């Protein structure tokens, strides 16, 4: 009886979601209703996870999610561990003949799915999901990005050739997953879009292995100049290139610390908040400064900017293109905290082409 009342109350609250939000009872129903709008699925462990049950209470039963859904379709999806017959039937009813998209790492979560069943974004981090306010703020960002990306994709659908590719690249730069294989389907040869889709970090590492430092530099800079790569991909290229110089190898000395400093700084400044921004910063500490990473803040000195006069440009702009996104995010506010020292950070952001300090270790540059 108690369960019945709770369910009835819950159903009532869900029914009270704002009028523009569509409520779906099943996943196929949600996919059918969604149209151009996203589906927001609240997925939680219903019979094994107290955290999930608490989140369900907060997000759904207390109806805190309602103001954020707006035109999206909302679906509540309980997951059962070792389900009994009743629970199995409930799951079957909710999923119909569909499967939830892969790529979700943890529950409870708020999954944003399009009408094609593509997972576009997930709010799943514990620090987000433990607080509805934080989670819903993150959800809002994703939903805004969704509409922004869809708008560009719509333009791409209408465009052809290079313009279409440009629109697709612009859409892909938005911090939300692209639907299905839309990039792959439209990627063609050595275009920027083709570069982005076809990028293979392992292949680059292997290709660099047998190159001299000069050849490696030319190879990486040429790739970057071709354009189309995401910030993450450009950081990966820099990691491969710097790694090659750091290790040296047969008939090759390792590059000088100043050279490495320049490369890792450049790599970090592409996007300091990303994983590879942090990687670059860690590399500066241990491989340039010879320090160790501790739980203490990274010493500010490591942010001194090295320079790479003959290295080229990792901004991601195609040659001749001055309107690209550039080496964004070089604010000095990094994934490991603010490590700038005043006076140096201007160089860190903009001055990739300043004179380098003398390189007395005699590397190939």
């Amino acid at each position, binding site marked *: 009886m108690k369960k019945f009342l709770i369910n009835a109350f819950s159903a009532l609250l869900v029914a009270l979601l704002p009028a523009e939000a569509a409520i779906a009872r099943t996943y196929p129903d949600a996919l059918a209703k969604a149209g151009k709008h996203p589906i927001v699925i609240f997925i939680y462990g219903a019979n094994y996870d107290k*955290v999930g049950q608490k989140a369900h209470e907060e997000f759904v039963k207390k109806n805190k999610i309602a103001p954020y859904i707006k035109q999206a379709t909302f679906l509540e999806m309980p997951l059962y*561990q070792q389900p009994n017959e009743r629970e199995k039937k409930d799951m079957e009813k909710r999923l119909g003949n569909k499967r939830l998209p892969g790529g979700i*790492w*943890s529950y409870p979560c708020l999954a944003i799915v399009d009408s094609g069943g593509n997972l576009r974004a997930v709010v799943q*981090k514990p620090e987000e999901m433990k607080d509805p306010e934080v989670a819903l703020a993150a959800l809002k960002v994703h939903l805004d990005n969704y509409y922004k990306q869809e708008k560009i994709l719509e333009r791409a659908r209408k465009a052809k050739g290079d313009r279409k590719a440009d629109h697709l690249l612009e859409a892909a730069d938005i911090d939300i997953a692209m639907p299905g294989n839309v990039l792959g389907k439209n990627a063609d040869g050595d275009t920027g879009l083709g570069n982005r889709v076809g990028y293979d970090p392992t292949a680059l*590492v292997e290709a660099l292995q047998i190159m001299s430092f000069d050849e490696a530099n030319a190879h990486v800079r040429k790739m970057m100049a071709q354009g189309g790569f995401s910030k993450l991909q450009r950081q990966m290229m820099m990691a491969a290139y710097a790694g090659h110089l750091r290790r040296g190898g047969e008939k090759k000395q390792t590059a000088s610390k100043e050279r490495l400093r320049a490369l890792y700084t450049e790599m970090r400044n592409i996007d300091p908040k990303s*994983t590879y921004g942090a990687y670059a910063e*860690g590399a500066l500490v241990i491989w340039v400064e010879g320090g160790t990473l501790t739980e203490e803040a990274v010493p500010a000195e490591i942010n001194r900017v090295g320079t790479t006069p003959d290295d080229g440009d990792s901004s991601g702009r195609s040659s001749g293109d001055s309107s690209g996104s550039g080496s964004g995010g070089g604010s000095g506010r990094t994934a490991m905290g603010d490590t700038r020292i005043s006076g140096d950070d201007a160089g860190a952001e903009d001055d990739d082409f300043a004179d380098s300090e003398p390189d007395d270790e005699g590397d190939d540059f």
Partner: protein
Amino acid sequence: MSARLIQLLAGSFLFFCIGVTVFPVLFPTKVEKKVTTVARTETVIKRDHQVDDWETEEADEDDAAWQEEPEDTTPDRRIASQDDETFDEEDVPIDPKQNVVPEARVHAQFTSALGEMRRFAPALEKQEAENYKNDEFKAADWADPEKIYFSLTDRILNKLGKLDETTIMRKLQEPAFRLDLARITLIRKAGSQALRGVCTRPKGKEMLASLTSDLNWMTNLLHSGPTKKMDQALCYLETLYGLVGEQEMSNPVTRRIATTTALEFAREGWNENDMTARFKYYNDSWKEGKLNVALDNLQYWETRVVTGCKQPGDGAGSWGGPRNLAWHRDNVRLPMEQYLGAECQLEYRLRNVAGDSVFSSEYLAPIWKYVNFTTGWAYREIGGVCGALSHYATYSALAAGLPAATMGEPGHCAYAMRIGNEWHRGNSIYWQHSLHKTFWGEHEWGYLILTQKLYEERFKTLSADIMVAMADFLTARRKMKAAFTCYEIAVKTQPNNWPALKRYAAYLKFKAPEDKEKWMTLHDAVMDGMGKNHYHAAATMLARYVYPNLAPLIKDRAKLNKMYSGLFNHFKDWGANRWDIAPILNAQISTCTTDDDKRAYLKESLRVLMRRPDYSGAVLTWGLGYISQLPEGDGKIQEDFTNMLVQAMGRTGASKKDIDETWATLGEAIHAAAKNKERRTFQAIGKLAHRKCKKKFNKKGPRVKGFSGRVVSATAWIDTATTIGDMSQCCLHWGVLQRFGGVMPGKFEGKAGLTIGMEKKCDITGVVCVSTEEKLKNDRPFYIETSDDGMNWYRAAPNGVISGNQIRFDLKKSNVSGKYVRMLREGDKYEPGIAGFYVYGAPQRN
């Protein structure tokens, strides 16, 4: 003058007599020392002549102790710590009625006892719900554990009266009696001195009083798996008791987490700080409702798998530290079923995007701070190989409070995960699993399943465990007859009880090593009990603990061979998982004392095992391996064995129905021949497979433009560096050397590649390798090395020329020779399939 002289002489004599009398009184030690020293050893005396002051010093020390400490005539009351491997009998009078080995009993003679034990199990379940408590021994009493021990032994023996099995079983049904027995068991396992040590800790006495007044707690502490280093476990438990206090410790889940953590950390020898951190992680997470609710209902043994997970230290690189567990708990929250496969959250990367190998410290080095020194998080960001992937999935489940364990496979890391009551393999590619978390030190999969099945029958197993505890007590009190009875009832009650069987076998060896009937009864008990479902464990139990004792007692060799082959006749298939039969066959053949015995044994074993498709390949593999390890001698036994094995292979079926089994059997055998570098056997099996299973081979081989000379590799053995999991296709490796070609996996990395061993040393004019890949990678060169002995290798120039799917090595002008040839590649790992490998040239005359 003469009178004066007489007076002087008399005076001197008197003085001498007084001196002789008084001296020993005044200087007793010195004199006694001398006497003692002289009396003790001749060596000492000799040394006395050699080194003047040596004897005195040594003797002083020795004798001072000997003389100044009066002999302690009171019996030593200390109770020594008792492990599961030995039997410690106390210094008590022997009751003649109990000092006999009871006759071996057949199964029917246990009917009444087993009926009683069947009723005992539900009684235990019912009584657990009632949770019997008795606080007879207060905190202060534990300062003198010997006093408690001796008062309890008297009480128990008085209650048991004549020590007949009916009385024993009736008494064991009384909770108060069982609690007394548990207290005794605890004192014996920890040792009384160690208990005194526990009592000196701040909450020691209080914890002991609380623990020993609670039958459920005591039962779970003593009977939820191994109890190695109980003294340390009690110290750890005291720490946790002090940490949370009596009230929180009375919560069943907190108590379970604390007890299992203490038991496992003591058993593994891990330190107290890590133990406390692990306990806090699970206890706090549980209190905060962050763990999977399945943890709430785990048994103690299951909880030990969780709280005792490996790598307890905190920080970068550790999986079991609280920081990493907390990260997994919060970031990989899944229903139980989805942890199996959670490794898919990580990218598989042998090198990171910077090109650093996963096996180097540089791989994750720059990222540690970003991920707050959290191992799972680091690998999720950067990717990893099998080890990281398997640990990631395993520790995600463990962090949620679900049983799981990583396990090794040849050159690979996989994991085991429990869903419901079933264990599943994750990221597994081979049948050889070596679990990293075990209870009995047995790492194979079969034992995991055995452990699961054993404890699933919780109260049946508990009743047997209590009976073993009773037997151990009776052993200590020298009640041999009753002890035998209790051990035998225990192993009959729960035939899957590996530790109980092991303990009984050890006792039998200790007390009645030559009682053939008893060993035969144990043999049959293992076959009929554990041997019904748990083949590997049953075979190992026999090979390790029964055969070495039973075999010398059976004089009829034929009968013994029948018993050995009967083992495999008894098994339906591989059981829970394939297992390595070689140790069992080695144990059996090791009981053969002559070469004729060995021949007879092999003949009988092949007769039985070659009829069993599951085992036939394995027995051939074993046989080939056995031959290769035999000392050279006159080579007769090797030849006989080889002939017997080849004949046995020849008898394998070639009909449509049998062909797949024959193919798999021969595949396994040819793989063993290649690994043993047995060229003749390799060729014999290859030809046999070609004759029997012709359809499995290609009709036409690859088109190859050769070099001068003939193909000298056709009669060689060939081996690949790849670890082969499924050996059923290995006869195609032989095909790789033949004109019609074959298939084998290639793996080129460093000095790992493709190796052949030819019949004779040859002058080599060229080599052609044909791949199954249409277009081979050509960014790195392939090259050839040759050797005369298979140990010392020399690189031949020039490197291979890659064209499409072929690599050609033109060695005409290189003056290359060797008996062994291998093809290698520079650069990173590359694994193209191989369809043909042909060495051209001519055999040398000498």
